[in-house]
């Protein structure tokens, strides 16, 4: 019943002309290319091998974190706890390592807590029907607290990044291995989204949950799965970050919050307009990474970037309203 992108505005639906549709579907890719061109022009170092590797690496981590989130939002729900779940995964791994466990155990547990958090979200939202915003604000708070508590309010140093750390910093030319792995995941996800009933039902869910239920589809199970999957994705990203930074940081997620949501929502504005999808998320993640890297080189401060990202999000939403396929949506209640 909730569609994060659409509203019950009094605005009339516009019949998009073909050209509008093309602009609407591909403007994000165009923006990405323009941005690369502009920054590269200003600072050619942007296109150095090592810089490209950095961009791709951070893109990969972000992309993994929000893969599940893409589908949660595509299904018409919202999840604002993803970053705190990542932080929890991150700190769990660090804490276990600091207590003497090996990487295998630590990483597995880190991912497992993400699954548990996702299960909590999914049960409350999909099974009990409690509004997703409230639930995820709360579970996010709980995860953040536990993450902070594990480190007694501060970060935990990791002595040895282990295999995972090595993996993260291995590159094939300008392309980090982790980026390839992430791309693989996304390819599989794309297939599931486009060619299997899985993705089909997710989009149906966002439009009309009742219709899906009446067609005999186990909508609740699907939603539950999506939240668990989202939790796992975020936690995996958290574990990877632990290896990448050689430390557990309780506040690891905070910069990812706006970025993550922006990426999913901006990505939702291309191809299937108004519907988050994995290809869109990929493009948007790349765009944001380029923005971060390029703007740092050009000398922007953090807060200036923050403002730009917020504006980008706003613009993106407005564009979706203007060019997209608007379906009249039911009375909202997130």
């Amino acid at each position, binding site marked *: 019943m909730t569609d994060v992108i659409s509203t019950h505005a009094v605005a009339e639906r516009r019949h998009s002309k073909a050209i509008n549709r093309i602009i609407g579907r591909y403007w994000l890719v165009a923006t990405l290319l323009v941005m690369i061109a502009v920054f590269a022009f200003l600072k050619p170092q942007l296109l150095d091998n090592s810089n490209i590797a950095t961009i791709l690496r951070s893109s990969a981590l972000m992309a993994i974190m929000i893969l599940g989130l893409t589908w949660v939002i595509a299904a018409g729900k919202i999840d604002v706890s993803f970053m705190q779940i990542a932080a929890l995964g991150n700190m769990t791994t660090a804490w276990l390592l600091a207590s003497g466990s090996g990487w295998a155990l630590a990483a597995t547990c880190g991912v497992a807590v993400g699954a548990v958090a996702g299960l909590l979200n999914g049960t409350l939202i999909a099974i009990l029907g409690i509004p997703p915003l409230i639930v995820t604000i709360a579970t996010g708070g*709980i995860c953040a607290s536990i993450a902070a508590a594990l480190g007694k309010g501060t970060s935990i140093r990791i002595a040895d990044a282990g295999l995972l750390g090595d993996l993260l910093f291995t590159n094939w030319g300008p392309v980090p291995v982790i980026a390839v792995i992430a791309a693989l995941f996304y390819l599989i996800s794309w297939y599931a989204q486009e060619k299997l009933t899985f993705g089909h039902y997710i989009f149906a869910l966002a439009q009309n949950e009742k219709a899906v239920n009446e067609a005999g589809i186990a909508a609740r199970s699907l939603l539950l799965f999506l939240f668990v999957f989202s939790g796992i994705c975020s936690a995996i990203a958290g574990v990877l970050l632990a290896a990448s930074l050689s430390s557990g940081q309780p506040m690891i997620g905070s910069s990812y919050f706006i970025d993550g949501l922006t990426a999913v929502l901006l990505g939702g504005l291309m191809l299937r307009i108004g519907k988050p999808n994995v290809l869109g998320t990929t493009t948007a993640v790349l765009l944001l990474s380029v923005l971060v890297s390029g703007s740092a080189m050009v000398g922007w401060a953090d807060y200036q970037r923050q*403002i730009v990202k917020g504006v980008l999000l706003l613009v993106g*939403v*407005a564009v979706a309203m203007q060019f997209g396929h608007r379906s009249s949506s039911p009375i909202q209640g997130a």
Partner: protein
Amino acid sequence: MPKHGIVPAGTVRFLAFAALVFIIGAAFTAVEPRFLSTQNISAVTRHMAANGLAALGLTLVVIVRKFDLSFAGTACFSAMTIGFMIAGGHDLWLCIMAGVLAAAIVGAFNGIAISYFGLPDIVTTIATGSIAGGLAFLYSQGRTIFRNFVTSGILDLNDARLFGYSASFFFLIALYAVAWVFMHRTRYGASFHATGENPVSAYFSGVPTRTYTMMAFIICAITSVFAVVLILAESGTADTNKGATLLMPAYAGVFLGAALLGGTSVLATLAGTLLITMLLDGFSLLGVPYYYSDGVVSAILLTGVVLFDARVRQLFSDLASFIQPVTSASEKRS
């Protein structure tokens, strides 16, 4: 469901709530007798003032069936605006008005974008909050402002006492009283309720729904400024993080109160805020580290919403299948 006036059926819930407060208070006092000391109650009331003020505006937004995730960022922006003005040596009330104005502008932007342009509330307010939070850095490049704070008189707002308790608390109660009268005894409150319950029929009844929705966002932004003023008064400095902590307790207050008292309302929010503040303060008194606070608040919110909301909804849906035949069948007989 907004109630019209104080409904007698709510008396049972109110008594249950009072019992809950009593039990919690007794439990804390049993473990830590200092809980009931004047000093502690004064601290509780002071903290309640800040949380409660932000929650009041949010209540209005939730009543018109929207969400606002920007007021934390707006509060930071206003905080720095006020700090900047204080550092400039201006009269205290002028400084506060400047902060209010800054917030009102953000609130108006939210209101216009969401109400008149039909942009989705959650995403838009995430964006504007982020932008506002970034703008907060503009005043001093992120450095803490503390010039003139001591001489400006702002610290008095924190220190002022009435009957031995914090004056800000009485301000809170007074404001809530005014809000209650406004919402339940005036045509403006009726219009707000109508807009939230069914914007289409409210529009057909001649209620300017778009204006009211916009006003809700403006008021929410303004009350968060009131809250942040208290925070500034307590700390004596302004930095870009003041206000970030307002989000969670405000949502907790509104929704916990709504779950307990059966609907979003001014009174429910006050009740929820009281409960949350008592619990937070009690735990802090018991020596529980600060980083557990968010988690505690979240866990309580979740428990409250699950226990009361889900079950109540279940009950209602069971009753609904009973109520329908009852009404029509009995009517036919009469």
